[in-house]
C-alpha cells in the first residue's frame, strides 16, 4: 500500500476527477500541450504532427461539448458562455467568443497563445470541436485559422464552416 494516502481519497479530495464529458481528468500544466506538440512533431513530422494534435484536440473538445449540451440546441448565449467557462475552468486561459453563427464565428484568446504557453493548434482544435458540437455537426466541419487584427488584446481565431 502507498505510504501516503488512499488513492480514492486522494481523487475525491482532488475534485478533478471528471472533466466536462465525464472522462477522467488529469492535472498537468499548460506546457503539457507544447510537449504534446513536440512529441507529435518528433514522432511523425512537423506538419502531420501539428495536424494530428489539432484533430485530436478537436475530437476531445467535441465530445466535451456534446456531453455538456446534449439533445436540444441551447440558446447561442448559453453555448458561448459554456465554451468560455469550460476553457477558463480548465486553466487554459480566457477565451472570448466574439461572434457565433451556424457558419462560423470569431474568438479571441486574451493575452495570446504565447503568453498562455499554448500551441495555436490546440486553441484551433478546441474551437473547431466546440463549434461543431454547437452547430449539430461532426468534427471536421469547421476550419479555424489564427488571424491578427489591430487593437486585439490577444490572438484572434476565425472559425469557418467547411463546404
Amino acid at each position: 500500500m502507498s505510504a501516503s494516502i488512499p488513492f480514492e481519497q486522494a481523487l475525491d479530495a482532488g475534485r478533478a476527477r471528471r472533466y466536462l464529458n465525464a472522462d477522467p481528468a488529469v492535472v498537468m500544466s499548460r506546457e503539457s500541450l507544447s510537449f504534446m506538440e513536440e512529441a507529435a512533431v518528433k514522432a511523425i513530422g512537423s506538419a502531420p504532427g501539428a495536424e494530428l494534435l489539432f484533430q485530436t484536440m478537436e475530437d476531445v473538445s467535441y465530445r466535451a461539448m456534446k456531453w455538456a449540451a446534449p439533445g436540444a440546441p441551447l440558446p447561442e448565449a448559453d453555448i458561448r458562455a459554456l465554451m468560455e467557462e469550460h476553457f477558463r475552468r480548465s486553466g487554459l486561459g480566457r477565451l472570448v467568443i466574439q461572434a457565433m453563427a451556424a457558419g462560423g464565428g470569431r474568438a479571441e484568446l486574451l493575452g495570446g497563445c504565447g503568453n498562455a504557453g499554448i500551441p495555436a493548434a490546440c486553441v484551433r482544435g478546441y474551437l473547431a470541436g466546440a463549434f461543431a458540437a454547437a452547430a449539430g455537426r461532426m468534427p471536421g466541419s469547421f476550419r479555424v485559422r489564427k488571424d491578427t487584427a489591430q487593437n486585439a488584446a490577444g490572438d484572434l481565431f476565425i472559425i469557418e464552416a467547411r463546404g
Partner: protein
Amino acid sequence: MMANLVTYASMMCDADGNGSIPIFGGGLCILPSTLWLLLVERLLRRADPMRSGAAEDAIRAAAAGYCYRLAHGVMESPEFMEGARAAGQEPRGRLEAFLSLMAAWGWADAETAFLEPGKKLVVHARAYFEADIRDTFQSARPLAFMLSGMCGALMDLLFAAPFPRGLASFTCTQTRGIECGDRYGEFVVTGKDAL
C-alpha cells in the same frame, strides 16, 4: 500531514477569472486523460511500422523533458514544500509526497517499491491513467510514457545535478504494464552509469 498536499491539490480546480490556476508553480491546467491517450494511439498508428520504435522513443524523450520541468516547478513551490515538510526533507520523503500528489492529480496510484538513494528506484503502480489506452489500442509494449518520464525526472531532481543540468541523468524503463496485460505497472529507474 500528507493531507495538506491533498488539500492544496483539491484547490487546483479553482481557476481565477483569467483562467489561471496559480498554485504548485503556476500554469496548471485540467485536461481530459483521453487527450493524451488518443494522441499517443494516433501517433503510434500513424508512424511508419518500420520505425515505430523511433516514434516511441520520440514520445518518451519529449515526456521525460516535460516531466522534469513540471516536477521541478512543483517541488520548488511553497505549497509542495509546506505539504511535504512532515514527510521530511530526505529524498524518500519528498518522493512519497510527490507520489501522493500524483494520485490527487489523477496520474497514478503508485508507491515506492524500492529505493537505493542515488542509484535505483522501483515504482509500482496499481492504477494509472495511461493504462486506459488498452481500451482502444493493443500493445505488447508498455506505453506509460508520462509516468515513466515522471519517475525518471524525480530521480534526476532528487539525486542528480541541480536543475536544469540533471535532466536525463537517470533513465526509466517500464518493465510491466497494465496496458499490456500485467497486473500492475513497474517502473525501474537507474543511473546512466548503471546501464
